[in-house]
């Protein structure tokens, strides 16, 4: 990480975050009241709550922040946003940091939400709409075939229930929902990604 060696409490990492992380320019506005940390439904699961992460960014703790799994605990409930007295878009900053860490390959390996998110995204851009069956199957098998079978069996009753209730369609596996203009959609996503990578200096 030599090109990213940052002096403690100097603003190099803060500037990096402001440049490359979604809504990152808000980080400096935190006044350390902690209302975000107290408002998170999964609070206990956070090794570093948002306001602490903001402080760590200002303290130049690049490694610790980007390799942390804390921001992956965000359920997108938006409690922190509506209560923040400085109106920081905390949810989005957490998403942004997670995405940034993920794109840099620094996010903790096998972090379940990260893996799920990737599967979800790939599933949706394939056809432009989410295929819940293939998505959930993929999810079961993300940890390998054997574990996948276990997971699937574990959820079998639910799966069957959903099928009975016509809320899970086995035919989906043969294609199912999707947008008509899939090429256009994929071109659009590719273009968007290209611009973003250029802007944020991600290697493809």
């Amino acid at each position: 990480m030599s090109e990213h060696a940052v002096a403690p409490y100097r603003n190099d990492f803060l500037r990096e975050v402001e440049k490359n992380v979604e809504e990152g320019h808000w980080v400096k506005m935190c006044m350390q009241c902690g209302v975000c940390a107290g408002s998170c439904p999964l609070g206990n699961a956070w090794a570093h709550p948002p306001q602490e992460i903001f402080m760590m960014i200002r303290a130049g703790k690049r490694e610790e922040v980007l390799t942390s799994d804390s921001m992956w605990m965000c359920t997108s409930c938006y409690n922190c946003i509506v209560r923040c007295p400085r109106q920081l878009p905390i949810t989005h900053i957490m998403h942004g940091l997670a995405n940034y860490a993920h794109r840099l390959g620094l996010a903790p390996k096998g972090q379940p939400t990260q893996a799920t998110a990737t599967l979800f995204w790939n599933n949706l851009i394939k056809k432009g709409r989410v295929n819940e069956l293939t998505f959930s199957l993929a999810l079961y098998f993300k940890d390998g075939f054997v574990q996948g079978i276990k997971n699937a069996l574990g959820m079998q009753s639910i799966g069957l229930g959903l099928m009975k209730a016509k809320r899970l369609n086995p035919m989906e596996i043969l294609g199912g929902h999707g947008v008509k203009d899939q090429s256009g959609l994929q071109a659009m996503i590719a273009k968007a990604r290209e611009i973003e990578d250029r802007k944020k200096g991600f290697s493809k």
Partner: protein
Amino acid sequence: MAEMKTAAYICSGCGIGERVSTAQMAKVAQKEGKMALVREHACLCDESGVQAIRDDIEKEAVTHIVIAACSRRAKTEAFNFPGIAMSRANIREGVIWSQPDDADRAETTQEMADDYVRMGCAEVKKMKVPEGNPNRASNKRILVVGGGVSGMTAALEMADAGYDTVLVEKSAALGGWSAQLVKRVPSKQPYADPADTGIAELAAKVSGHKHIKVYLNAVIAQTNGAPGRFSVDIAQESGATVTEEVGALIQATGFTPYDMMQLPELGAGKSPNVVDQLGLEKLVKAANGSPVKRPSDDGEVKSVVFIQCAGQRDEAMESGGRHLPYCSGHCCATSIKQAMYFKDANPDIDTMVMYTDLRVPGTGEDFYRSGQQKGVIFTKGKTASVEASGNACKVNFKDLILNEDATIEADLVVLATGMVANSGMNIDIPEEEVAKMEVKPVSILNLNYRQGKDMPQLKNGFADSHFICFPYETRRTGIYAAGPVRRPMDMTQAIEDATGAAMKAIQAVENASLGRAAHPRAGDLSYPIVRLEGCTQCKRCTVECPFGAIDEDEKRFPVFNESRCRRCGTCMGACPVRVISFENYSVDTVGMQIKSVDMPDEFSEKPRILILACENDAYPALDMAGMQRRSYSAFVRIVPVRCLGSVNTIWITDALNGGWDGVMMMGCKKGDDYQCHFVKGSEMASYRMSKVDDTLKQMGLETERVASYEVAITDIERVPQLIDEYAAKIKEIGMSPMKGFA
């Protein structure tokens, strides 16, 4: 003044008539009170009642009246007769509302009412209508000491109100510290950026103003006199001394930054790259728009750390603190401003403010946000040490959020040290201790006052002021403190404060010219009159006066400076030979009330308890107890006094000699958090009362017969309890043996 003609008016309204015999009271007023005219009225405060009194004043030439009705605190608009001496017997709140409406209390209630009538008559006959201080002086010029932003503002505001002003500045130029600032913290929205100081313009206005006379390189050699007639010797650089006659003074002598050399642990003196806030202003001024240079090697400053509370918010000296125990208030905003100097010039410069509590009250919060917006970083941390490392500094601190020790390197470290008041000498330090000091304190006002050369200090070396309800009230009438000499403050507040002080100074000269008292008895025309032929030169009055109003002449007789006097009567209380009095408040006006009551014999089981109650707090509390119909013993007789400090022990001995069974003294809290409106009055009283036990023993009386209480105006529930407990105590120790001898 015309021949005294007395009249008593007995009101039977508000239920008085149903509870007591007003006819009986009228008889008392006539027979015992010797009132020339006595009238009863069904509702004395209505048009007809007031008109009846007016008619008597006009047609019957009545000069002295007793109103036996409600409390002196009620119906003041109705009972307002200029030029007439008036005493008010408190029959409503003080008798019928404080006594239960029971048949078995009817007799004692009537006795109470009768006694208050007796007391009213006795008092009014000893009252004169005050004519105002004869030694009034009407010089309305005002002198300001100190030419910083506070002093200049005060001078300008007074001049703009049409008052001639003299401004004395010890340095060669106007402006003070504020002249050294590059910019100031903004005082107008959006409170986002440093603003121009406006000092040059202010100084120009002051120097050019037709009502302002400026002395530079000048100090006060001596200050004589009193409000309306101060004469101030101004020593100039040339050595020449000029004397200015003025009516009031404003001390706006500002502050000195706390000496950062006391903070070696924070790198002061260890590295040239560690400066205080004024040091930084100098660096920025020197850079004059170009990048700020690092003192050690003129390298460009790339990073700055601001350390808040440097040498401030320390433990109190008495508990081992080495630095300032207080918070100077402005420093957080000032550091934000200074960080902006760098950020506005070049956002790539790292600036960090290290704080434990960021203190930017009011709209300062906007300025804080603006600082963050500009990229100033704020770290809640406690600095352990600052060390020089080459051309940089290492700041070692504990990050209180991340809860770990950390270090940051910076080119420049700015210490936010506090404000130390330039308040002159602390006159409460005894001379022998002053003698021991290696650095002798230097007086600023050089007051030629018996009690010392400067204004008394209140706390932490800041100039005297009651700091909640009446922030300008010092113990030196006609001399007001303004700006950081009074309390640490920023420029915006100093401007406010100076304007307020200017107001008070103007008021002081106006009141002095009319021979009237200043706060809190503003408008009071009475003044202390001394019979020097009786004086024994004991100096108690000169020592005890809370306001330093009394000096001594070469023959060590007291010299009263009436316009310095606040009319509290502490001198009257102090005088062992009772030669000091006020026209409408004297040893006699109270003494005769005490003598006037009807004293039942020792077998009557009707003790008499005298209550001397402070009219500012204890008396209103008793009134409100009545308003809430909280009853208390019928054996007490209450006499309001201006301040317990005015209580002369003769009243107590006379009372006891006269057969009173007990005396309750009710005054305000004393000490650091004093609530006495005359600052030291209640303290003086308690000091005197500590000696009263001996007197009692000599008289062969139990010491319980005199008791002192600290009573607050809110003690509405407590006061009746105190009274009843004391009445029980008296019952227990028995009636006074002195009855019948008087």
